[in-house]
């Protein structure tokens, strides 16, 4: 019901948007897909250091659902959004003219975490185990299925529980033998609570298109310079964050409400989450999207039945707008 209401709301927003007289002068909303978080440090840095302003861009962060961001970009109402790779193919399969133009995460960040003392250390070890997953959709589910695929297993070979975003609590409580997590987040929280884990990372088994910058075909054809500017400024933000994580963390305090009010231990945990995220952003070819990662993603989605037929991958992503 939430999503249906959101759908009607989205339609209303789009219908009313045409009436907005000052639309051109308004800041550009950037759907982030998640709540304010230290993982968005590159974007906060790019604003604070004036990288977007240097390109003539004024950005306003929008922390609504990832799928809403994709729909708004697909409808041509917003030029950009941050999304995970699988969303691009799922959206294009439904006719949304969206194109991925800049890779941010170089590896798919999903992993399976199990208590350090357990015998779960590789995908094969998941057979017969009780595994908690936030939702049966999105990056978590895609990553989970990719690991099963790597071990030649099916979903039925495990006992899968849909637990919402309660991975830390359920693993600590012993309700699940393993949980599907973001490798740069929950494992650090578990460790901080005295529960170190074994991690089975998707990225160690298969390369999948991960989080990055999305635009639409209309923006690419009508305003390619805008896309280049956005990509350039964002890459500068990523580069600056990698170069000086401490300064980036300080900037995050202006954007992540309550971050500076946390205890020293919790601030240290957030800093470790930033550092772990940075590891996913490091690359010799900033922004570059690996065609094989898209091919792998498509094959996975086809195997899962989420895509009915292969898509034209050349139209789904582009490296042409990188500096």
């Amino acid at each position: 019901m939430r999503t249906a209401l959101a759908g009607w709301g989205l339609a209303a927003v789009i219908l009313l948007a045409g009436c907005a007289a000052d639309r051109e002068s308004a800041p550009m909303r950037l759907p982030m897909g998640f709540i304010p978080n230290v993982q968005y440090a590159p974007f906060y840095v790019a604003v604070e250091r004036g990288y977007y302003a240097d390109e003539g861009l004024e950005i306003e962060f929008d922390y609504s659902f990832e799928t809403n961001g994709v729909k708004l970009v697909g409808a041509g109402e917003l030029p950009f959004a941050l999304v995970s790779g699988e969303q691009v193919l799922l959206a294009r399969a439904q006719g949304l003219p969206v194109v991925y133009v800049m890779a941010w995460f170089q590896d798919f960040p999903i992993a399976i975490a199990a208590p350090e003392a357990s015998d779960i250390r590789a995908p094969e070890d998941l057979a017969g185990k009780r595994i908690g997953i936030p939702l049966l959709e999105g990056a978590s589910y895609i990553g989970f299925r990719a690991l099963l695929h790597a071990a030649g297993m099916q979903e039925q070979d495990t006992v899968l529980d849909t637990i919402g975003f309660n991975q830390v609590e359920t693993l600590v409580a012993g309700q699940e033998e393993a949980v599907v997590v973001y490798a740069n987040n929950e494992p650090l929280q578990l460790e901080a609570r005295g529960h170190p884990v074994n991690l089975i990372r998707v990225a160690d088994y298969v390369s999948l298109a991960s989080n990055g910058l999305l635009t639409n075909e209309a923006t690419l054809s009508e305003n390619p310079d805008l896309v280049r500017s956005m990509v350039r400024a964002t890459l500068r933000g990523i580069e600056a964050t990698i170069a000086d994580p401490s300064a980036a963390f300080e900037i995050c305090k202006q954007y992540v409400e309550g971050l500076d009010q946390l205890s020293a231990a919790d601030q240290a945990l957030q800093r470790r989450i930033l550092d772990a995220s940075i590891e996913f952003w490091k690359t010799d070819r900033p922004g570059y999207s690996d065609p094989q990662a898209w091919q792998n993603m498509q094959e996975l989605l086809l195997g899962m039945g989420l895509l009915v037929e292969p898509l034209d991958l050349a139209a789904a992503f582009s490296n042409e707008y990188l500096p």
Partner: protein
Amino acid sequence: MQAVQPMKRGRVRLGRWLPALSALVALIGWEGVARASGLPQFILPPPSAVVARLSRAILDGSLLGHTLVTLSEVLAGLALGVSVASLLGYALAKSSTLERLLSPYVVASQAIPIIAIAPLLVIWFGPGRISKVLICGLIVFFPVLVNTVVGVRSVPRELYELMRSLRATRSQVFLKLEAPAAMPVLLGGLKIGATLSVIGAVVGEFVGADQGLGFLINLGDGLYDTPLVFVGVLTLIGMALALFGLVAALERRLLAWRTVEV
């Protein structure tokens, strides 16, 4: 006088068709807006696309499976919520001490933002159906409880005195006086609760589920299959209407003894 009768019959016939007529007008309006706005289907699907998706979901059996899961959660939640609320409501109506003691908690139960505690219920009671049933029960609880209290307290004092004069036992007072007298108001609460219980089940399924209409809606959203989202929502509306109708039918049967003054 005779000329008035056909007119009255005509109005009755028209009244019978009014809901269907208004639904048809709404559908035509929706189709018109969807087409005229030029919005793509993933933003606002026209009813024709929703009907096509509905028939696919019916034919492949997925809609029935998800509907039965949600319905079972709703019925269990209703049974739980109504049982606890009517028992507690009766006790509160009869004891002002108990009312003073428990009222803050009862009101607080209504103020709980269900969506905020739903993840906790999943942690406490596991990812199965129990958490969904509890959320349903919690949503049903308050309207039924309030109506039970109001219903029991609405019994005129003179009737109690009459029962006492007839040397009625406590159970006779309950069965012959309080229960029938409170029933109209209690059923009013049940109508509200039955409708709300559907929302409760979906909130639970949104937080973590692999079956049910809430899951189906989430799935449709995740796959940008907006017509599927509408299929889920419309099925939920249908379920709420059916439950409302069921309670209304129960009301007609249980309250048939009432004479209606015109």
